[in-house]
């Protein structure tokens, strides 16, 4: 028996997961205790991960959809079909009629090769679900600090003296983070949680701020107004390392804590306490997540967070910084690899002629398409309009995860050709013309980049049965299309990544395999130890200085109305994972919540005459869904909460996009709750 080190396939924290292998079969999980992030800990999802490996619902053979249902076909036939159909569409309608969705679940190598394939085919229509969770962080933090990533490693939170948590429920979504927040608390840190819902994370707080949904900017500006009024800003830091402070000061001159209190619904004294605690402590960190980004003002929200951190000089030292917690095990890596419609590998904009040509020459081409492609939601719109004819989706489930799911289904059904590559026959795969089964995380090797920018190697534990890895499929497909003449090993691709992305230059397969704790990018050369803390001496902006961007509160795109009097917000729960493909049919997890539920305040429940466990119909102007009532004080009156792991929830959500980051405004939509689902009580 041996223990093979892999990286947990669920959230973005990147916890190591040892798989006990005996006679080529995975027989159990072992905890890896010498890892600095986890010290051996794993959340319930990590503990249940092995269930994926031998799950009876895994697809084991390529399948085409025919009138009578699914027909199993051989690998060669499947790849032939995929290549032929993609090329047909390309020749008939041009490359921009193709849409590619890459996967935040796949390795760096797979994402790199996937977007390379799309771009070599002549389109930038390649995107992935980072668009749906942290694209505002990428855009906003890049503008403000020069890098759209977490500034410090998670264990560094233990050095914080004040932790401000905004719109993040890490206790359920990234449980390992709570270890370090609690460690900081043990060492005397003050913990502030701002969230409209009293989550398990809020239970850890010294100060809990139940703000109204969609009022993050008002809270942050209110805090900054207090800090300026009381002279708590770090003026030395501002003078030496930032630009544009005067504009920010001017924009805040007519804002006050009273106004903030009016908009957010918080007690002004609490805002003042939070502001003082954050500004005065020697090291303050901001943790934020999708409660900040998933708004039509997502980028502005992120900029407001950055403004607060910069104003107080709480960046670039241990225990400080901004912690946007990424949701998937390789969402950071997939973004780094350029699986984004507007950015090439290494965050080079497609419109940057120099950077683009440099990459093109590495790939043996003259040039690559300069025009930014369509993002996740835009692709679906284009499909409805008939501009996109064929899509190739690698390991994503837009039918559940995209907003206004009614439109998504329409779009997917309208496609001339849809190929889906996944572990299970997901809601999206059921609409496909061709389904390709893939190897799961334990059946392939490759590198993953965690939310901390920690690049780690995950070893193959068992041989895949009947399936190929994403990398093998893309390699074979590219060979069939004629993009390259061989298939690639993960090691080969990682070396090419090193050539394409300066921040990965020093990260080689040999180094990764030899280290238990991985390497933090940027790592410019092979002797460089990696960079756990960014922005120590200079920011990653061209001139090395951070930028202030004044932002102001804007009301959410949809306000409650007579017909739809409640505000609905969505989020995650601990036992489920994203679109649910990796948790809804995993018994040890799904038993905690087998079906959709909705959290309603007792006051609202009483008004509507609802009882615990009753089935209700929730509708918004866009659709409706049935759920089971959970009456709970966790939500404030007028607010309901739904976990988005179940199909249907996104029938209700809003498709309004953030103007810069193109993220949909998932977090606030108006809705109503009515008694009586079709199944009765």
């Amino acid at each position, binding site marked *: 028996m041996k223990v093979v080190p892999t990286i947990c396939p669920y959230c973005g924290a990147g916890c190591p997961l040892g798989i006990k292998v005996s006679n080529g079969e995975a027989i*159990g*999980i*072992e*905890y890896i*205790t010498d890892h600095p992030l*986890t010290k*051996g*800990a*794993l*959340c*319930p999802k*990590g*503990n*249940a991960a*092995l269930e994926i490996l031998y799950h009876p619902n895994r697809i084991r053979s390529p399948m085409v959809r025919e009138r009578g249902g699914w027909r199993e076909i051989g690998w060669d036939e499947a790849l032939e079909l995929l290549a032929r159909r993609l090329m047909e569409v390309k020749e008939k309608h041009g490359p921009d009629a193709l849409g590619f969705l890459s996967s935040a679940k796949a390795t760096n190598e797979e994402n790199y090769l996937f977007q390379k394939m799309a771009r070599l085919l002549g389109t930038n229509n390649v995107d992935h679900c980072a668009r749906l969770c942290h694209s505002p962080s990428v855009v906003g933090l890049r503008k403000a600090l020069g890098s759209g990533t977490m500034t410090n490693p998670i264990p560094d939170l233990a050095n914080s003296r004040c932790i401000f948590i905004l719109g993040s429920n890490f*206790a*359920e979504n990234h*449980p*390992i983070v*709570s*270890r370090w927040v*609690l*460690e900081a608390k*043990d*060492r*005397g840190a003050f913990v502030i949680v701002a969230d409209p819902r009293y989550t*398990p*994370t809020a*239970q*850890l707080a010294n100060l809990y701020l139940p703000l109204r949904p969609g009022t993050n900017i008002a809270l942050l500006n209110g805090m900054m107004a207090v800090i300026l009024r009381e002279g708590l800003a770090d003026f030395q830091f501002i003078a030496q390392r930032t630009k544009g402070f005067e504009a920010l000061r001017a924009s805040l001159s007519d804002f006050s804590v009273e106004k903030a209190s009016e908009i957010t619904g918080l007690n002004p004294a609490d805002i003042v306490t939070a502001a003082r605690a954050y500004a005065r402590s020697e090291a303050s960190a901001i943790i934020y997540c999708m409660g900040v980004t998933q708004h039509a003002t997502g980028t502005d929200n992120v900029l407001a967070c950055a403004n607060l951190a910069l104003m107080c000089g709480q960046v670039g030292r241990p225990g400080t910084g901004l912690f946007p917690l990424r949701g998937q095990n390789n969402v950071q890596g997939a973004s780094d690899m350029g699986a984004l419609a507007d950015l090439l590998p290494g965050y080079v904009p497609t419109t940057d002629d120099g950077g683009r040509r440099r990459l093109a020459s590495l790939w043996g081409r003259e040039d690559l398409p300069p025009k930014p492609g369509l993002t996740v939601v835009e692709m679906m719109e284009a499909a409805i309009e008939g501009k996109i004819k064929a899509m190739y989706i690698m390991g994503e489930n837009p039918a559940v995860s995209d907003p206004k799911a009614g439109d998504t289904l329409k779009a997917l059904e309208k496609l001339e050709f849809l190929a889906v590559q996944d572990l299970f026959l997901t809601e999206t795969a059921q609409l496909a013309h061709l389904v390709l089964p893939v190897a799961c995380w334990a059946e392939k090797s490759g590198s993953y980049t965690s939310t901390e920018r920690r690049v780690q190697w995950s070893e193959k534990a068992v041989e895949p049965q009947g399936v190929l890895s994403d990398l093998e499929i893309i390699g074979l497909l590219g060979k069939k299309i004629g993009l390259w003449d061989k298939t690639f090993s993960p090691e080969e691709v990682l070396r090419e990544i090193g050539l394409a992305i300066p921040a990965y230059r020093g990260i080689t397969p040999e180094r990764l395999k030899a280290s238990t704790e991985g390497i933090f990018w940027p790592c410019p050369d092979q002797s460089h130890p990696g960079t756990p803390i960014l922005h120590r001496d200079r920011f990653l902006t061209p001139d090395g200085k951070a930028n202030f961007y004044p932002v102001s509160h804007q009301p959410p795109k949809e306000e409650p109305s007579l017909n739809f009097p409640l505000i609905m917000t969505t989020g995650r729960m*601990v*036992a489920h994972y994203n679109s649910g493909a990796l948790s809804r049919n995993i018994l*040890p*997890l799904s038993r*905690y919540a087998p079906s959709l539920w909705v959290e309603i305040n007792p006051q609202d429940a009483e008004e509507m005459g609802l009882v615990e466990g009753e089935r209700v119909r929730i509708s918004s102007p866009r659709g409706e869904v049935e759920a089971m009532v959970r009456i709970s004080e966790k939500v404030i009156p007028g607010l309901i909460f739904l976990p988005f792991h179940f199909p249907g929830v996104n029938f209700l959500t809003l498709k309004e996009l953030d103007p810069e980051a193109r993220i949909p405004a998932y977090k606030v939509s108006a809705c109503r709750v009515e008694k009586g689902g079709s199944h009765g009580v």
Partner: protein
Amino acid sequence: MGYEVLVRPERCISCYACEVACAREHGGLSNVWVLPQGVPILCRHCQNAACLEVCYTGALEQRDGEVIFHREKCTGCELCLLACPFGAIGLDGKRAYKCDLCSHRRQEGLMPACALTCPAGAISYSCVADFSHRKRGIAGLSWAMGYERRGK
């Protein structure tokens, strides 16, 4: 010897990691229960155990600060369930089941799964002295900070 599974309830984030891990280690049945209040409850391995007193077949045995359960001697009478002050013994149809402190893991020199897996560090497998010493350190910190603020 001298090690106990000790819980810091204020740290529990009700993530169910211990339950899932325990169930995996024990063939699908978890010997730990995470309650809605957000605290894991498991066998306390009492020194003077009530369950031991009612067990008439010797299926329960106290040895080295550990209440050991011998499944092969259990008749499934449910009397130990009725004796346990914590409700920490379960009945799987025909036989009782309870926490064995992951004896199979300890034989290999590994910690019990729940203590190792807890992401929030709420469960620890340590001796009472270390556990309390750590708590005193934490309490002392805020005490000392208060004194410092007073200017002493």
